[in-house]
Protein backbone atom coordinates (compact mmCIF):
# COMPACT_ATOMS: atom_id res chain seq x y z
CA UNK A 1 0.00 0.00 0.00
CA UNK A 2 1.33 3.40 -1.00
CA UNK A 3 1.37 5.79 1.96
CA UNK A 4 1.64 9.09 0.05
CA UNK A 5 0.88 9.03 -3.65
CA UNK A 6 1.14 11.73 -6.29
CA UNK A 7 -0.10 11.96 -9.85
CA UNK A 8 1.27 12.41 -12.38
CA UNK A 9 4.88 11.33 -11.88
CA UNK A 10 6.04 13.30 -14.91
CA UNK A 11 4.49 16.41 -16.41
CA UNK A 12 5.81 18.12 -19.52
CA UNK A 13 4.02 21.23 -20.66
CA UNK A 14 4.50 24.52 -22.44
CA UNK A 15 4.84 27.97 -20.95
CA UNK A 16 1.55 29.65 -20.23
CA UNK A 17 -0.40 26.45 -19.64
CA UNK A 18 -2.29 25.58 -16.45
CA UNK A 19 -1.66 22.24 -14.76
CA UNK A 20 -2.56 20.36 -11.56
CA UNK A 21 -0.78 17.82 -9.40
CA UNK A 22 -2.76 15.57 -7.09
CA UNK A 23 -1.70 14.10 -3.76
CA UNK A 24 -3.34 11.55 -1.51
CA UNK A 25 -2.23 10.00 1.79
CA UNK A 26 -3.68 6.96 3.52
CA UNK A 27 -1.78 7.33 6.79
CA UNK A 28 -4.57 9.09 8.64
CA UNK A 29 -2.41 12.21 9.04
CA UNK A 30 -3.97 15.60 9.62
CA UNK A 31 -1.27 17.78 8.04
CA UNK A 32 -0.10 17.86 4.43
CA UNK A 33 2.62 19.82 2.65
CA UNK A 34 3.89 20.80 -0.77
CA UNK A 35 7.62 21.16 -1.37
CA UNK A 36 9.61 22.28 -4.41
CA UNK A 37 13.00 20.70 -5.05
CA UNK A 38 15.18 22.55 -7.51
CA UNK A 39 18.02 21.23 -9.64
CA UNK A 40 20.44 21.72 -6.74
CA UNK A 41 18.29 19.45 -4.57
CA UNK A 42 17.25 22.23 -2.21
CA UNK A 43 13.89 21.41 -0.56
CA UNK A 44 11.73 24.49 -0.21
CA UNK A 45 8.40 24.34 1.57
CA UNK A 46 5.57 25.99 -0.31
CA UNK A 47 2.39 25.27 1.64
CA UNK A 48 1.06 23.25 4.52
CA UNK A 49 -2.51 22.41 5.43
CA UNK A 50 -3.87 21.14 8.72
CA UNK A 51 -7.37 19.68 8.66
CA UNK A 52 -8.03 21.45 5.36
CA UNK A 53 -6.91 24.79 6.78
CA UNK A 54 -3.94 26.65 5.25
CA UNK A 55 -1.20 26.94 7.87
CA UNK A 56 1.96 27.81 5.96
CA UNK A 57 2.07 29.89 2.81
CA UNK A 58 5.66 30.69 1.95
CA UNK A 59 6.67 33.32 -0.54
CA UNK A 60 5.15 31.57 -3.52
CA UNK A 61 3.73 33.32 -6.61
CA UNK A 62 -0.04 33.45 -6.48
CA UNK A 63 -0.05 31.44 -9.70
CA UNK A 64 0.28 28.48 -7.31
CA UNK A 65 -2.94 27.59 -5.54
CA UNK A 66 -3.28 24.61 -3.21
CA UNK A 67 -6.63 23.01 -2.55
CA UNK A 68 -7.47 20.52 0.16
CA UNK A 69 -10.88 18.90 -0.38
CA UNK A 70 -10.40 16.70 2.71
CA UNK A 71 -7.68 15.68 5.17
CA UNK A 72 -6.38 12.95 2.90
CA UNK A 73 -5.95 15.05 -0.24
CA UNK A 74 -3.93 18.13 -1.15
CA UNK A 75 -3.79 19.24 -4.74
CA UNK A 76 -1.60 21.89 -6.34
CA UNK A 77 -2.82 23.96 -9.25
CA UNK A 78 -0.40 26.09 -11.20
CA UNK A 79 -1.54 28.81 -13.60
CA UNK A 80 0.41 30.40 -16.43
CA UNK A 81 3.40 28.10 -16.10
CA UNK A 82 6.88 29.62 -16.47
CA UNK A 83 10.26 28.10 -17.28
CA UNK A 84 11.37 28.68 -13.68
CA UNK A 85 8.59 26.43 -12.41
CA UNK A 86 10.48 23.40 -13.73
CA UNK A 87 11.37 21.32 -10.68
CA UNK A 88 10.33 18.25 -8.74
CA UNK A 89 7.32 18.83 -6.52
CA UNK A 90 6.86 16.67 -3.44
CA UNK A 91 3.79 16.17 -1.37
CA UNK A 92 4.26 15.10 2.26
CA UNK A 93 2.12 14.40 5.29
CA UNK A 94 2.47 14.14 9.05
CA UNK A 95 0.58 14.35 12.28
CA UNK A 96 0.40 17.95 13.47
CA UNK A 97 2.01 16.98 16.79
CA UNK A 98 4.91 15.30 14.97
CA UNK A 99 5.70 17.68 12.16
CA UNK A 100 9.32 16.63 12.11
CA UNK A 101 8.30 13.16 11.01
CA UNK A 102 7.06 13.71 7.51
CA UNK A 103 6.25 11.09 4.93
CA UNK A 104 7.01 12.14 1.37
CA UNK A 105 5.42 11.09 -1.88
CA UNK A 106 7.47 9.95 -4.89
CA UNK A 107 7.49 13.39 -6.47
CA UNK A 108 6.22 14.94 -9.70
CA UNK A 109 8.86 16.09 -12.14
CA UNK A 110 7.48 19.17 -13.91
CA UNK A 111 9.23 20.34 -17.06
CA UNK A 112 8.10 23.58 -18.67
CA UNK A 113 9.27 24.15 -22.25
Amino acid at each position, binding site marked *: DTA*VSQTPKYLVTQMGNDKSIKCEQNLGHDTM*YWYKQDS*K*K*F*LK*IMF*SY*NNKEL*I*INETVPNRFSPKSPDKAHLNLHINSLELGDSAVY*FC*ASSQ*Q*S*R*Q*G*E*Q*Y*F*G*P*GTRLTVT
Partner: protein
Amino acid sequence: QQQVKQSPQSLIVQKGGISIINCAYENTAFDYFPWYQQFPGKGPALLIAIRPDVSEKKEGRFTISFNKSAKQFSLHIMDSQPGDSATYFCAASFRGSTLGRLYFGRGTQLTVWP
Protein backbone atom coordinates in the same frame (compact mmCIF):
# COMPACT_ATOMS: atom_id res chain seq x y z
CA GLN B 1 18.16 33.25 6.11
CA GLN B 2 19.16 29.61 6.23
CA GLN B 3 18.07 28.28 9.62
CA VAL B 4 20.05 25.06 9.26
CA LYS B 5 23.46 24.99 7.58
CA GLN B 6 24.79 21.69 6.25
CA SER B 7 28.22 20.63 5.05
CA PRO B 8 29.80 19.28 2.98
CA GLN B 9 27.76 19.69 -0.18
CA SER B 10 29.17 16.44 -1.55
CA LEU B 11 31.12 13.59 -0.03
CA ILE B 12 32.94 10.66 -1.57
CA VAL B 13 33.83 7.75 0.70
CA GLN B 14 35.34 4.36 0.05
CA LYS B 15 33.34 1.27 0.93
CA GLY B 16 33.84 0.41 4.57
CA GLY B 17 34.80 3.94 5.52
CA ILE B 18 33.02 6.42 7.80
CA SER B 19 30.82 9.13 6.29
CA ILE B 20 30.34 12.27 8.38
CA ILE B 21 27.89 15.05 7.58
CA ASN B 22 27.66 18.14 9.75
CA CYS B 23 24.87 20.58 10.48
CA ALA B 24 24.57 23.75 12.52
CA TYR B 25 21.50 25.66 13.62
CA GLU B 26 20.76 29.07 15.07
CA ASN B 27 17.40 28.86 16.81
CA THR B 28 17.76 27.36 20.28
CA ALA B 29 14.01 26.73 20.38
CA PHE B 30 14.39 23.84 17.92
CA ASP B 31 13.71 20.62 19.77
CA TYR B 32 13.72 17.91 17.13
CA PHE B 33 16.48 17.14 14.66
CA PRO B 34 15.74 14.53 11.98
CA TRP B 35 17.86 13.30 9.11
CA TYR B 36 16.27 12.40 5.81
CA GLN B 37 17.70 10.14 3.11
CA GLN B 38 16.78 10.59 -0.54
CA PHE B 39 17.63 8.15 -3.31
CA PRO B 40 17.57 9.32 -6.95
CA GLY B 41 14.03 9.52 -8.28
CA LYS B 42 12.46 9.03 -4.84
CA GLY B 43 11.08 11.23 -2.14
CA PRO B 44 13.04 11.92 1.06
CA ALA B 45 12.51 9.39 3.84
CA LEU B 46 13.07 9.81 7.57
CA LEU B 47 16.27 7.99 8.52
CA ILE B 48 16.97 8.81 12.15
CA ALA B 49 16.17 11.66 14.54
CA ILE B 50 17.31 13.04 17.88
CA ARG B 51 16.02 15.35 20.56
CA PRO B 52 18.34 17.81 22.32
CA ASP B 53 18.13 16.07 25.70
CA VAL B 54 20.49 13.32 24.49
CA SER B 55 23.96 13.64 23.00
CA GLU B 56 23.92 10.59 20.78
CA LYS B 57 21.49 8.25 19.09
CA LYS B 58 22.47 5.11 17.23
CA GLU B 59 20.44 2.97 14.88
CA GLY B 60 22.44 0.26 13.20
CA ARG B 61 25.29 1.83 11.24
CA PHE B 62 23.79 5.34 11.58
CA THR B 63 24.59 7.59 14.53
CA ILE B 64 23.58 11.15 15.30
CA SER B 65 25.91 13.14 17.55
CA PHE B 66 24.41 16.24 19.12
CA ASN B 67 26.25 19.16 20.72
CA LYS B 68 23.70 21.50 22.28
CA SER B 69 26.19 24.13 23.45
CA ALA B 70 27.74 24.40 20.00
CA LYS B 71 24.35 24.18 18.28
CA GLN B 72 25.68 21.48 16.01
CA PHE B 73 24.72 17.93 15.12
CA SER B 74 26.17 15.39 12.78
CA LEU B 75 25.36 12.12 11.06
CA HIS B 76 27.93 9.35 11.09
CA ILE B 77 27.56 6.37 8.77
CA MET B 78 29.83 3.55 9.85
CA ASP B 79 31.05 0.89 7.43
CA SER B 80 29.62 2.89 4.51
CA GLN B 81 28.18 0.79 1.69
CA PRO B 82 27.47 1.59 -1.99
CA GLY B 83 23.77 1.25 -1.13
CA ASP B 84 24.16 4.26 1.18
CA SER B 85 24.84 6.48 -1.84
CA ALA B 86 22.08 9.08 -1.65
CA THR B 87 21.42 12.69 -0.72
CA TYR B 88 21.16 13.32 3.00
CA PHE B 89 19.29 16.24 4.53
CA CYS B 90 19.50 17.40 8.10
CA ALA B 91 16.54 19.32 9.46
CA ALA B 92 15.16 20.94 12.56
CA SER B 93 11.68 21.60 13.87
CA PHE B 94 9.67 22.68 16.87
CA ARG B 95 8.04 19.39 17.82
CA GLY B 96 4.47 19.75 18.94
CA SER B 97 4.06 23.29 17.73
CA THR B 98 0.84 23.89 15.85
CA LEU B 99 2.68 26.21 13.49
CA GLY B 100 5.78 24.06 13.23
CA ARG B 101 7.54 23.06 10.06
CA LEU B 102 10.76 21.40 9.00
CA TYR B 103 13.75 23.60 8.27
CA PHE B 104 16.01 21.65 5.92
CA GLY B 105 19.71 21.94 5.29
CA ARG B 106 20.76 22.16 1.66
CA GLY B 107 21.68 18.49 1.43
CA THR B 108 24.82 16.38 1.06
CA GLN B 109 25.29 14.09 -1.90
CA LEU B 110 27.09 10.99 -0.63
CA THR B 111 28.82 8.61 -3.02
CA VAL B 112 30.29 5.40 -1.66
CA TRP B 113 32.78 3.75 -4.02
CA PRO B 114 32.97 -0.06 -3.97
